[in-house]
C-alpha cells in the first residue's frame, strides 16, 4: 500500500512539474491557467507555512517561559512583541501604530546592529594582521582599503579616480567574475535538482 501511495505521489509530482515547466515554453491558455492555479496553491501553502512557522516559534518560546530556563526573559519579550505586532497588524485602523513600531523600534535597532557591525569589522581588520600576519590576510586588508578608498571621497580632494577605477575593477571584474561563477553553479544545481524531481529520482514529497 505504501508503495502504491509513493508511486502515486511521484506521478502527481512529476506531472505537476512538467505542466509548470511547459507553461514557460508553450503559450496555451489552458495550460497557463492550470499552471497558475498550481502556483497559487503553492503561494497559499507558503503563506500557511509562514504562519505555521510563527506558531512554532511562539510555542517554543512559550515552553521556555514555562520551564523558566535560562534566557526565558528574552523569550517572554519575544512573545509579547509578537502578540503586540500581530494585534497591531490585523487590527484595522492601527496603521499609524505599525509605522511607529517600524520607525521607533525596528529600523533603529537594525541599523544600530549594522553600525556595531561596522565597528566590529574595523576592529577585526586592526587585529587581523597582529594575530595572523599571513599573505592572505595582508591581501585582504589591502583589498578592503582599496575598495573603501575608491568608494568614498576625500576632503578637499574629492574622489580619487585611481582608487575609483581600482574599486570598479575589484567590484565589477574580480568580484563579478566570482559571482558569475557562483550563479552558473546555482543555475546548474537548480536545473539538476529540477530534472531529478521531474524524473522521480528525488522525492522531497515523500517516498524513497
Amino acid at each position: 500500500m505504501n508503495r502504491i501511495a509513493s508511486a502515486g505521489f511521484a506521478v502527481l509530482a512529476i506531472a505537476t512539474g512538467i505542466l509548470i515547466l511547459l507553461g514557460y515554453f508553450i503559450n496555451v491558455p489552458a495550460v497557463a491557467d492550470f499552471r497558475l492555479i498550481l502556483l497559487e496553491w503553492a503561494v497559499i501553502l507558503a503563506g500557511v507555512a509562514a504562519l505555521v512557522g510563527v506558531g512554532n516559534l511562539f510555542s517554543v518560546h512559550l515552553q521556555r517561559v514555562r520551564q523558566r530556563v535560562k534566557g526565558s526573559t528574552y523569550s517572554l519579550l519575544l512573545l509579547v512583541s509578537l502578540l503586540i505586532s500581530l494585534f497591531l497588524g490585523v487590527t484595522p485602523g492601527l496603521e499609524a501604530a505599525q509605522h511607529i513600531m517600524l520607525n521607533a523600534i525596528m529600523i533603529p535597532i537594525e541599523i544600530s546592529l549594522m553600525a556595531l557591525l561596522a565597528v566590529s569589522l574595523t576592529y577585526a581588520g586592526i587585529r587581523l594582521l597582529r594575530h595572523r600576519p599571513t599573505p592572505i590576510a595582508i591581501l585582504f586588508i589591502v583589498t578592503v582599503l582599496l575598495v573603501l578608498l575608491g568608494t568614498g571621497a576625500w576632503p578637499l580632494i574629492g574622489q580619487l579616480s585611481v582608487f575609483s577605477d581600482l574599486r570598479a575593477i575589484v567590484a565589477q571584474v574580480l568580484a563579478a567574475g566570482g559571482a558569475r561563477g557562483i550563479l552558473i553553479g546555482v543555475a546548474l544545481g537548480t536545473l539538476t535538482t529540477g530534472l531529478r524531481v521531474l524524473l522521480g529520482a528525488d522525492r522531497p514529497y515523500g517516498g524513497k
Partner: protein
Amino acid sequence: MADVKCSMCSASNPAEAEVCQQCGARLKPLTAPLDSIHPGETPTKISTSDLENTLPSWLRDVRQAAEESPAALPAATPEFLAAPVAPTPNTPLDFLSGLSAAKDDSDEPVPDWLAGLRDSLPTEEVSQSQNPVQDLLTSLTPPAPIEPQPVEPPAEEEPTWDFHDSATAETPDWLAALKAQENTPAAPKIEEKAEMSATSGDFPDWLSQLSSQTSPAATLPESAPNTSSSATGDLPDWITSLRDDSAAPVAQPASAEATAPQGDLPDWMASLRDDSAAPVAQPAPAKVTAPQGDLPDWMASLRDDSAAPVEQPAPAEATAPQGDLPDWLANISPNVEQSPSVEKPAKAFDTGAFAESALPGEAEPNWLSGITSSAPQPAAPEAEPASALPGWLDAFFVPGAEKPSEAVNQAAVEMPPVAETLPAETSAAPTGAASDAIFSMDMPDWLAGFTPSDLDMPAPKAEMASTASTETPEITPVNLPSWVQAMRPMEAVIADAEDVENEQMVEKSGPLAGLRAVLPMIVGGMTMRKPKTYSIKLNMDDAQQAQVALLEKLLATETKAQDLPAREKNRAERPLRWVIALILLLVTVIPLLMGSRWLDVPQLAGADLQAFTETLGKIEPNAPVLVVFDYQPALAGELEPIAASAVRELMLKQARLVFVSTTPTGALMSERLMARLDPQQTYTSSAQLGYLPGGAAGIQVFASAPTRIERDGLNGAVLESPTLAGVTTLNDFAAALILTDSPDEGRLWVEQAAPELRGKPLLMVLSAQAEPLLRPYFDSGQVQGLMVGLNSGAVFEQQVSPDGPVRQVWDAFGLGLIAMEALIFIGGIWGLVSAWLSARAAQKQEEA
C-alpha cells in the same frame, strides 16, 4: 625411444633393458597385467603359481636355492631353508615359509620390553615354544577331530597347489623342502591334517594346504640353528628373527632364546617370536598376551583365532602370509575351526560367506571380533608383556584370566556349536552365482575365492566381555609413545564409536551386499541435522584488544572538533573597541549634525548608472511603474536615500506607482519612504499591493497575473484603484523598479519577472553588497539599469535633484569610510610590527 626410469633408484635405463643397470631391479614385470574382472563375469581360475613372479627377489632366490639342491642349502641358502623339512602337506605359501625358521645368532640389541617378554616366559614354555606361524595356522584347521583319510591329489586339470602330495609334479622342489622342514614327529597329526584338507575340497589349493599342514617344531633338528646362523647374512633382520622364532628347537633352553636378534625387529614380529615361545602342549599359548602394540589387526585375529582351537594339536609352520593379508582373512581361522567341513563340505570358501559374515551386525571390527571371539587368555605369561601394550589393547585382554590350559578348556566347553551360534541367515549361504557376481570385480582370481566363509561367533564374544567385566585386570597400562597412541583405533578413543557403528548399515542387495558402512546411511533423504553453531565472539589477546581500543580512539578523535586554544585576553581589546566606536560615531554624527558639505560628490557615472538614468527618464508620465521594496530595515540607511531619489523622479513624472514586496517589512518600508517623500500624502497615484508570499512561486504568479492575487485577497479593493487601471499583466507596467539589498531576491525577480515584462525595462536599485551577484544580469542585458549604493545614488541625485537625501549623508558616509580606512591601516601596521616584535622576542628567548 624414451628411457625407462627405474622405480627403485630412479636411474635411467634403455627401453629394452630388463633390469636396472644401476641397481639391478627389474624394470619389466615378468607377468602380464592381470585383467580385471567385470561385474557379472565368473572369475577364471588361474594357476597361482604365476604369482610367484611377483614375489620379492630375495624370496625367489630363496626358493630357487631350495629347488636347486638340498645339498647346497648350508652354503647358498638360509639355514631355515636348509633345515630338513618334513614333507608336511600343510606348508603355507612358500614366501612365508621362511618365517618358520629360527635363528639366534644375531647380536643386535634387543629392546628392554622385548627382552622382558622373553624373560618372563617360563623356561618350560620356552622349551616348548613352537613356530608362531604354526600356531596361527593351526587355527585354520577345523577343530573337530577328523578321521584320517587318504590324501588324494587334486585333479591335474586344476592348476592349483597341492601340498598334500609331495610327489605332485606341480609342486616345486623348494616347496617340498619347506614341507620337509616343517615335518613333525607327530605322524598322526600329519595324517589328520591331510584328512582335514581333504574335507575342505573347495578351498583354494594353497589354502587347503594351510589347513592341513602341521609341523611341530619339536621335531626340528637341532642343527637348524647352526645352519641358520651361517646363512643369515643375506637376509633382512626381521626375516632372520622370524627364522629364529620359528625354527627354535623346543629343547633349547630359554637362555638361547634370550640371545635372539631383536634389534630391528618390528613389534608385531616380536610378538610372533613370543608366540612361538609359547608351549606347544598348551593349546592356547600366550599369544594374545604377547606385545601387540604394533600388531596388525589381521595378525591379531589370526593369533587369537589360533588360540581358540584348544584341544587341537599345535601345528607347526603356520606361517600364513601375514604381511599383506586383509582383515577379512583374519576371519579364516574362526571359519575353519568353527564350521566343520562336514557341515559345509562344498563351499568352505564360498564367496557368499563374506556377505554372511557381515550380517550379524557386529559392532566391532574384524580384528577385534577375532580377538574377542577367542578363548580366555592365560594370565600368567601375559601379564608382563601386556604391560607394554597400549590401553586400547588392554581392553581386549581378559583381566585376571585363567591359566592358559584352564582358559582354553573353559573356552572349549563354553564354545557353542557353530551351527547353533550361527544366525539363521548366516547359515543360509547365498547362491553361488550371486556371490560370485559380488566379488568378481577387479579381484584376482586367487583372491576371489579367498573369502571368509563363516561368521564370527557372537556368543563367545559376549561371554568374553562378561568375563572381562567381572575380573580384575592385572595388566597395568603404561604410557605409550605418541605415535603409538596415534595409531589407536578411533573406536578406542571416541566414546560414541559404538553408536556410530550401530548406525552403519549392512548392504543386503546389489554388488555391495554383505558389506557394512560402504555407503553413507541416509534415511528418508538427507539427514537433517542441526547446524553446528559457531561462536561469533572474537578471541583476541591483550595486544589485539589494545590495538582495537587505539583504533577506536583515533576514530573518535576524527569526528570530535578540536578545542581551540584559549585566546589570551588582552586588556587593550575592550578600550580599543570603545575607541574605534567613538571615532566612528564622531566622524558620522558630527557631519550629520553640522550638515557639512566637506566632501565633494562624485560626478562621474558608470555605465550602469547611465543606463538607469536614461531608462528611468524614458518612462512616460502617468505610466504604471512597479516598485518592489525588498530591502530590510537594517539597510534602510543605505538604500532609502538612493531609492528616494529614484522614486521621487518617478513621482515627478506622475507615474502610477504600484508597490509590492516579497519581504514582510517591505510594505512598511514603502510607506515609510512615501511618507518621507510626500509627508502631506498628496501623491495619490500609488497603490500598495503588500506582501507577496511564496518566494519564486509568488513572484511567478504575480508576474503572470499581477492582479490575480489581490483579487482573491483581503486587499481586493485596491484593484479598483485608478493606479492599476489597465494593468492585468506585468507587461502592462511601463517599468519595474527593484529596490533590494539581497542578491537572492534580486535574482528571483530577474529570473521570474523579467520574461513577463516582455521588453519593458527592469531597473534595480541595489545595496553595495548585492552588486557583485546582480551585476552579471546587467551585463547580460536582463537588467536595463543599475544604481548601486550611495556612491551611484549621489551621482544620480546630482543629476536629477541636487542636495537630496544622499547629499545629506554623503559627508558622514565619506568621513566614516576615511576613519575606517585609517583605523584599519594604522591597526594593521601596528599589528604587523607587534607580531614581528613578538616573534623576535621569542626568537631571542629561544636563543638565550
